[in-house]
């Protein structure tokens, strides 16, 4: 007879709490110590199942915003003797047996992902820090310095061709607030390959449907264009943002087959890592 959790997610939550008990860790430590020298004993009262009610936190090490600082190095040891451990962590001074948790925004926060560095940031904060209120938003696919400012409540007018739904194209190159201005659609059917793609790129976070249409139009008009890789990255990100994960995955694998040495593969991985909602 089975007792306890039955569903996969419940079983996994229980598994994450399933750490060894004190006796098991003591036994392992005792076996290792003769070969390794004195060892601290991981503390099951801190790390053990009983201490981990939440069970679902995802940590990214020191490079990430979610940090758990465990400063108990000298306090939890058994048989530590004079063992001196240099604390290389960037955590604060070792206050014994104190654990500090810092929570970050959700991993997949839309409009808040730098796909080049793979670091999620708050979109508002980022725009502010760059001190460029009137600057044209650029996709993070462009450069690490690019921003993605979102514009709640504003969506382009729908017309026959996605190209014709683009606002203030002429202002793009001038660095004005074209994309965020809410202006009516005026497009140039002869929009250049680069300009068309730029329109798609600029919309990928706040209007992925349109970005995808623009990317597809780019593919239709410039099948052998020089910006095919950039287009695919935009299309894949748009698919992920639309929740079409399988389509994105298929297109990404196709991309990898077509461009196995592409520098965009790294960006694409960052997009999958930070933009994609959990499947």
């Amino acid at each position, binding site marked *: 007879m089975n*007792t*306890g959790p*039955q*569903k*996969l997610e419940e*079983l*996994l939550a229980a*598994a*994450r709490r*399933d*750490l*060894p008990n004190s006796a098991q*860790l003591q036994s*392992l*430590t005792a*076996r*290792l110590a003769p070969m*390794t*020298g004195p*060892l*601290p004993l*991981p503390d099951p009262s*801190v*790390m053990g199942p009983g*201490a*981990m*009610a*939440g*069970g*679902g*936190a995802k*940590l*990214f*090490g*020191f490079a990430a915003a979610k*940090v*758990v*600082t*465990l400063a108990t*190095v000298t306090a*939890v040891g058994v048989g530590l003797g004079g*063992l001196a*451990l*240099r*604390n*290389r*962590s*960037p*955590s604060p001074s070792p206050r014994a047996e104190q*654990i500090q*948790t810092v929570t970050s925004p959700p991993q997949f926060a839309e409009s808040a992902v730098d796909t080049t560095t*793979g670091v999620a940031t708050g979109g508002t904060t980022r725009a502010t820090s760059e001190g460029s209120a009137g600057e044209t938003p650029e996709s993070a696919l462009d450069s690490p310095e690019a921003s993605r400012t979102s514009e709640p409540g504003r969506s382009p007018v729908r017309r026959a061709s996605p190209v014709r739904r683009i606002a203030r194209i002429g202002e793009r190159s001038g660095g004005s607030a074209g994309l965020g201005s809410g202006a009516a659609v005026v497009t140039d059917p002869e929009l250049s390959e680069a300009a068309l793609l730029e329109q798609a790129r600029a919309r990928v976070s706040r209007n992925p449907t349109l970005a995808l249409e623009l990317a597809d139009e780019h593919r239709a008009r410039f099948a052998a264009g020089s910006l095919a890789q950039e287009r695919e990255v935009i299309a894949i990100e748009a698919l992920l943002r639309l929740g079409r994960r399988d389509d994105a*995955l298929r297109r*990404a*694998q196709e991309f990898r087959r077509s461009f196995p040495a592409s520098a965009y593969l790294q960006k*694409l*991985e960052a997009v*999958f*890592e930070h933009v994609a909602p959990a*499947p």
Partner: protein
Amino acid sequence: MTVRTTASAMVPDTPPQGAYAPPEFQLIYLEYGPFVWRAMSYLGVPVSDVEDACQQVFLVVLRKLAEFEGNSAIKTWIYGICLRVASERRKRASASREAPSAEPPEEEVEPAQEAELERQQTRKRLTSALAQLDEDQREVFVLYEIEQLTMKEVARTVACPLFTAYSRLRLARAAMKRLLTAELTP
């Protein structure tokens, strides 16, 4: 309440600027000891073999730590060692016809220890299903779903492209749901 289910607190996971000096072994052990144990338990190492397997992992870490130059994150490096040791242990158990992890022997528990009993049953249900996955899928699934590595870390640990890791995870999830549902169906 303290929440801590992954290894990443004390040992810097990303190499610092400048010349890289690996962290001390003792810190690594303190940080990763419980998680290496858990990983071994769910990667198909027989229950009776988990402690030996953990010992082997940390002896490899100790031996190779001086050579670790920070070209990869310490976390993916250690979990990579876990995967190799677990794979070797599974094969050894299979070759010697020991009980595989799918049917681990029950640990002795006091009748009153219902929580412990439930923990064991949960582990048994999961490991039984995990044992039926392909090794590639099982590794990705365990690293992501239980060890809570990011997908990028998972891909680096198993040395496959990120998209392949995503595909394996998707297949593994579907298979696990199917297996667990079938198990409950009379």
